[in-house]
């Protein structure tokens, strides 16, 4: 035993300790508040963005419409529910002179000046409404026709003063109004912002994503499984690993150039097609899936593999009965991240011609199409003021689509986690 006395309470040391303790707590508080400030700032930015988008975007779901009352059967359109259900109904109506009838009677009702404020393509909407509900042929029905770009901007308080005065006059007579435009969700691109729709781009995005998923998911997962479970660890697999990591960091425009140079020279007739777009985006998504897949596979405890091997499972059975199901939630998360990035991607698709003006929705993987982000880019580039709100509306649709995709993936992930 040594003779050192047991330390007793020392007032001076206690005071110094208390002072230091105070400083330490102050430091902790400062750190906490800085973090809180960072969070609040991010939330504020997000709220401003979303608020701005919603206010603009809600207006984007509306349009200026001119009300015209027509009784088409009295005006000489001979059609019935049967003929209108046929595929050529639009052409049939056109041959019967629907365009001229619409134009003539609009002029008669509103006067020449006001009638000029109705879009030239208005008859197509009349036709669409008639085809959707043949009953209205037989009666006096008020059709809400899209305004021309000039009238719409005059209504919004811009442009030629004479035009603005006329718009104000029409509003007073109940001939011009802003209405909810649900057709925005079913139409495609057009030159008049009152007549555009998002369906073409939405369908294009869906088709492109399907191609991307169908290519990138199996290739990515199989590559990840092979690299983790089968490949020997040597210089070649190191090279492959580094290459895949680099591939994930390559700017997307480069993939666009690759798609242009490789895919379009093999399939030159599929320019602007979702097939080529999907293939290009799959190149970009695949490395993300491989990397996240490998991490998810690495996270499966080796004891599970040992347990399965020890009761005589073959390596393939170990992989497909145990490793893959356990890694799947992680792989799905990686896939969502990759797909979300692909969904928002514009640059590579510009390179392969998906920026074309496409006025009809694509009917397959090989017909010309555009996608949501490219559509947003194209509309934001338009001169007509009416496109500003339409752009915001398209952004809202894109975000909703993204949300839907993520929700689906989270649902799937939870399902798999419950089962295992």
């Amino acid at each position, binding site marked *: 035993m040594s003779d050192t006395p047991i330390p007793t309470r020392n007032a001076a040391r206690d005071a110094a300790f208390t002072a230091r303790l105070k400083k330490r707590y102050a430091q902790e508080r400062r750190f906490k508040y800085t973090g809180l400030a960072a969070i609040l700032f991010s939330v504020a930015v997000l709220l401003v963005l979303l608020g701005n988008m919603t206010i603009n975007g809600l207006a984007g779901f509306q349009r200026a419409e001119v009300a015209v009352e027509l009784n088409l059967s009295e005006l000489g359109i001979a059609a019935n529910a049967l003929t209108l259900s046929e595929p050529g109904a639009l052409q049939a109506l056109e041959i019967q002179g629907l365009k001229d009838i619409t134009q003539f009677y609009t002029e008669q009702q509103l006067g020449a000046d006001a009638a000029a404020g109705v879009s030239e393509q208005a008859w197509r909407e009349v036709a669409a409404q008639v085809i959707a509900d043949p009953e209205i042929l037989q009666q006096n029905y008020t059709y809400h026709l899209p305004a021309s770009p000039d009238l719409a901007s005059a209504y919004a308080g811009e442009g030629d003063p004479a035009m603005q005065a006329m718009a104000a006059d029409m509003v007073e007579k109940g001939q011009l109004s802003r209405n909810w435009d649900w057709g925005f969700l079913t139409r495609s691109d057009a030159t008049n912002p009152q007549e555009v729709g998002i369906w073409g781009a939405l369908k294009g995005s869906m088709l492109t994503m399907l191609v991307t998923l169908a290519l990138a998911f199996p290739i990515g997962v199989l590559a990840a499984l092979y690299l983790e479970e089968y490949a*020997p660890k040597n210089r070649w697999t190191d090279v492959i690993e580094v290459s895949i990591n680099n591939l994930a960091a390559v700017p997307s425009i480069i993939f666009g150039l690759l798609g242009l140079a490789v895919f379009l020279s093999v399939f030159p007739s599929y320019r602007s097609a979702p097939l080529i777009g999907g293939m290009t985006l799959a190149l970009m998504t695949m490395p993300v899936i491989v990397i996240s897949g490998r991490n998810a596979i690495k996270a499966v405890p080796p*004891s599970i593999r040992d*347990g399965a*091997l*020890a*009761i005589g*499972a073959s390596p393939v059975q170990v992989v497909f009965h145990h490793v893959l199901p356990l890694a799947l939630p992680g792989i799905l998360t990686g896939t969502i991240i990759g797909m979300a990035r692909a969904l928002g991607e514009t640059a590579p698709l510009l390179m392969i011609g998906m920026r074309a003006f496409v006025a009809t929705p694509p009917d397959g993987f090989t017909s010309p199409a555009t996608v949501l982000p490219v559509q947003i880019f194209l509309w934001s580039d338009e001169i007509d003021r009416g496109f500003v709100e339409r752009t915001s509306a398209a952004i809202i649709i894109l975000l909703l689509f993204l949300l839907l995709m993520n929700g689906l993936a989270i649902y799937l992930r939870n399902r798999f986690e419950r089962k*295992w």
Partner: protein
Amino acid sequence: MVTVIHPNLEATDAKMRASNVSVYYGDKKAIDDVSIEVPSKYVTAFIGPSGCGKSTFLRALNRMNDTIPSARVEGTVELDSEDIYSDAMDVVHLRARVGMVFQKPNPFPKSIYDNIAYGPKIHGIAEKKDDLDEIVQTSLTRAGLWEEVKDRLTDSGTALSGGQQQRLCIARAIAVDPEVILMDEPCSALDPIATAKIEELIAELSGSYAIVIVTHSMQQAARVSQRTAFFHLGKIVEYGKTSDIFTNPIEQRTKDYITGRYG
């Protein structure tokens, strides 16, 4: 240094026979020229200090070392006089015949039922639901777990307690009807009560299977085994009847180890 075979050891029919086995991890020699016979109706215990190669040798008996890329095995290991490292021996078939229970319980994250049924399913032992049900029940009964889990067979195997998980793993190994069961420190992660249950279970199973158990606990080796091999620095120092090894060891190092001088 040659292994000392205890003179009292009478000849029994050997289930597995290892001759001049050496195991390397890269350049490092983990097992050095080990020869031993595993009798068919007894429990054989491998004891020895940490890092002496007991587990490595155990894993050489059902080729689990194959999963470690740098591991290499020399010498021959025979199961019923067939060389398990020859090309004629299929490793999947071998592991169905030589089952293994690990140090840490590793039930599959599936239902208790599926944990047991998985092996018979992949080996095609039982195709029909009724047969599977029967295998599940017999295996769980033999592992002493049936009464505890019969009402919750659909619960996840990972929801059981540690001791129950380990018995589930033993039941899983029995379900494919192996000839040999290798146990790698099966009780080291368990409390004394769970350990006692596993030891009871080993005693019950010893009539039906050749069992090899690696253990750190000399008391456990003395309680459950009939044969004991003392490993030191990658070699078997002494091998004989458990009673002889613990009461009348020949080698000085064995004496030192069982009296607790090192290890």
